[in-house]
């Protein structure tokens, strides 16, 4: 990390390549957020590796003045894992789409999370295959009409948060592409967390799935239809800051403060650090219109980090093993002399 005076500006993270996403695509905003966050974090260009798979979103590394690798469809998290394990000093960020991470790369996605490799994964969820021009994805809602589902899909979508926590994930956050300030915060939180951090960004594809998140991201309604969770703060939301969440038996319930005897003291306080997944899952799964959609860091729990454990184990074994070199190895065990 750098001292304040030679700290890089966000523009120092822009590469010389012109950005080729469609005008108005949510990806532009996410690129800005990531560059801002990296500047705020005091990163230096050479210590960052940005790894992606294939998709519109996965073009991302070309636009970053860091080390970068645009790989193959779905395998970004496996390649990023290799980078991080090989050199744990690097800051490894993975860029992926809903198709890249959850369809073709689903297996790598869940296993990376299970291992808890220290990666910051930004999942661009536009609920569509952008690059291949508009087919439904594993996050498209049931009944969604697209080029490959002209009569509507007959399958249920994944909820990335649920999948992440189900794969024993320890960090999950959600934000909206165009909310730069909050997105930057989420990136910084993810960077600070050790282990696999998943940030689901609700991203708009203007061309093939415009306004898919509009019901909740639209300025006019967003405060009433989303809730920005913060660790240690009560789960209050709404334009009037008068709505909240509480537990009704085993379920979450939306209440209005001041109605039916509900006071601010009754509202749940968000504990992102709680090991138990029950409430985090419920929060991650909330969907409009029954609930506000949860934004912010839903879960951030400390757990052993794969790449660090690999290093520790190497050191421990090296400490006790008699074999210190290749030569020691080949002379160990059963050998004999021919004279």
């Amino acid at each position: 990390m750098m001292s304040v005076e030679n700290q890089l500006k966000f523009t120092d993270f822009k590469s010389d390549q012109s950005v080729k996403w469609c005008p108005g695509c949510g990806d532009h905003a996410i690129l800005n957020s990531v560059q801002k966050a990296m500047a705020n974090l005091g990163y230096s260009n050479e210590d960052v590796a940005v790894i992606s798979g294939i998709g519109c979103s996965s073009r991302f590394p070309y636009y970053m003045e860091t080390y970068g690798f645009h790989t193959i469809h779905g395998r970004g998290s496996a390649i990023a894992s290799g980078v991080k394990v090989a050199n744990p000093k690097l800051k490894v960020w993975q860029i992926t789409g809903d198709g890249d991470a959850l369809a073709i790369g689903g297996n790598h996605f869940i296993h990376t999370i299970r291992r808890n490799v220290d990666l910051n994964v930004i999942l661009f969820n536009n609920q569509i295959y952008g690059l291949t021009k508009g087919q439904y994805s594993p996050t498209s809602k049931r009944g969604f009409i697209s080029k490959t589902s002209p009569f509507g899909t007959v399958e249920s979508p994944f909820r990335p948060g649920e999948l992440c926590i189900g794969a024993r994930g320890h960090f999950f956050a959600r934000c909206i592409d165009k909310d730069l300030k909050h997105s930057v915060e989420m990136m910084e939180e993810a960077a600070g967390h050790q282990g696999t951090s998943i940030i689901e960004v609700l991203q708009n594809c203007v061309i093939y799935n415009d306004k898919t998140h509009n019901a909740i991201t639209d300025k006019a309604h967003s405060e009433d239809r989303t809730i920005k969770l913060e660790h240690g703060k009560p789960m209050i939301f709404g334009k009037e800051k008068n709505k909240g969440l509480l537990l009704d038996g085993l379920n979450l319930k939306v209440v209005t403060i001041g109605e039916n005897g509900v006071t601010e003291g009754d509202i749940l306080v968000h504990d992102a650090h709680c090991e138990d997944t029950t409430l985090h899952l419920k929060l991650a799964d909330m969907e409009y219109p029954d609930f506000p959609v949860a934004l912010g860091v839903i879960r951030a729990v400390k757990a052993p980090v794969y790449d660090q454990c690999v290093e520790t184990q190497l050191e421990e074994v090296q400490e006790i093993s008699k074999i210190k070199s290749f030569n020691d190895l080949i002379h160990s065990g059963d050998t004999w002399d021919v004279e």
Partner: protein
Amino acid sequence: MGKRSKVIEKEEVVVRFSGDSGDGMQLTGTLFSYTSAIFGNDISTFPDYPAEIRAPQGTISGVSGFQIHFGHSEVYTPGDYCDVLVAMNPAALKANAKWMKPGGTIILDVDSCDEKNLVKAGYHTDDPIIEDKLGDYHIVKAPITTLTKESLKDMGLDNKSILRSKNMYALGLVYWVFDRPLGHTKEYIQKKFKKNPLIVEANLKVLDDGYNYGNIIQAVTPSYHIHPADIKKGKYRNLSGNTAVAWGFLAAAEKSNLKLFLGSYPITPATEILQELSARKDLGVKVFQAEDEIAGICTAIGASFAGSLAITTTSGPGLALKGEAIGLAVMAELPIVIVNVQRGGPSTGLPTKTEQSDLMQALYGRNGESPVVVIAASSPTNSFDYAFYAAKVAVEHMTPVILLTDGFIANGTQPWLIPDLADWPEINVPKVDEGMKDWNAYQRDPESLSRYWATPGTKGFEHRLGGLEKDAVTGAVSHDAMNHQKMVEIREEKVQRVANHIPELEVIGEDDAELLIVGWGGTFGHLFTAYEELTHEGHHVALAHFNYIKPLPLNTYDVLKRYKKIVVCELNMGQFANYLTMNFPDLEYKKFNKIQGQPFTVVELKEHFKSLLEE
């Protein structure tokens, strides 16, 4: 020591220990091979275990065997046919009878030949010897089970432990047959069962009693004399092909000063490489057991991008899964070694058997023009050498290299003269250096055409790689038509130029031989033995064996064109012969192919070559 009635002097001999999976035949064979090696014979071994982990007891599918070939001169294969067979049950006899040399010796535990076991083995009468027409062999009917029980009756051991010692009784008897000292095996027993003195005592006793039993039955039992071989002086150890591959990479990592990273997913018969390297944390190896073969190679590619010596290991089905990622490594021009321990295919095929049928997959099994270097090891111990060279080529030329071995050499063992790494060549890592001005990711060394390795963490060399075509000059994404053609040609030429850095093809035998035998990879031992025996018998044959497949050695054409008749022998339908035809279409190649999951036998090779000589 008593007088021996019938002593057979031999140059070389093949012994096979065979029994039920639970009879401890692998250990027995291993101990016998060590004793022979220490005695000074050259040896070659091959284990042969059932495909099922717990195959039904007493059946042929449950037979587990271990074969040792040792001799007064050098031996190159574990042998085709046995001189001495130890059969611990009727199924072992049934499974191996057809692999006996005429006049050989069969030691059979007659106690195991009860009706139940005979039926399970598929015999219809109560005399398997007559039924299998084995009358011409020396049959030693030894009641091994009874004798073991008798030997241990006063030790207070439970029945199960007693029966488990049967193999040591048999081993003792075989030591008598070959007049070998028991010292090494005794030391092993003492070390292995250190914590259980009773078991040590029991095993030592049955070993001795088995040996002494030889003295008792010497009137009806031949014994064999094989003098020590004249092998190079030095310190030796036994090495299997799979361990050799693992160690070759360890050596390359040390020589290149790079960290070794393996990303892999278990698959027969390659798993031992993964296991061996997993145990080498002491040497700093990072092993990533991935969720599948794709993640195995992808983590390795990531590690290569980050600056490690990165490898992935697999067998045929896994290589199929890795195809797309190998293409990425071709495009990104990152060094990586992909080991394919070939087995019988297609699909799951014959997982525990050997074949050479992935050659075309290794050469061409990817989308697009996707050249990689292909190297094949040809013996258990030279798998070390070729793993080392595969890593050297990958790093020095910034290219994926596919290293082919096969189930036969992977599981076989040979004595290995322990090397001194100082004698091995340096590995020069083409890292960027700070003096490079206006560097870009696809700048190349003018001689090798290899690009330079800039690893994350190096200031001033930040760059982006990827699977999209790149501009030859700037390294940026490019869809330009002429640029693509140029880049495709450069990638191919880069691989071809590796030929300037590999040894020429050597021919064993005369330049004017009537027949040139051509082989590649794991068939060397059999082809060489056939060549040697034919030459000895006065035939004019020569042998050219390939380890470098792509690129081919520069003198390949000059060598091949010297011969009137060329026969390409391989364990597939003729893939290498077709590859040679593609490269040198004006020559004529005869094919000798076998696709049975088994290695060639020297006998069948010689017969075939003789018929070609007569044509």
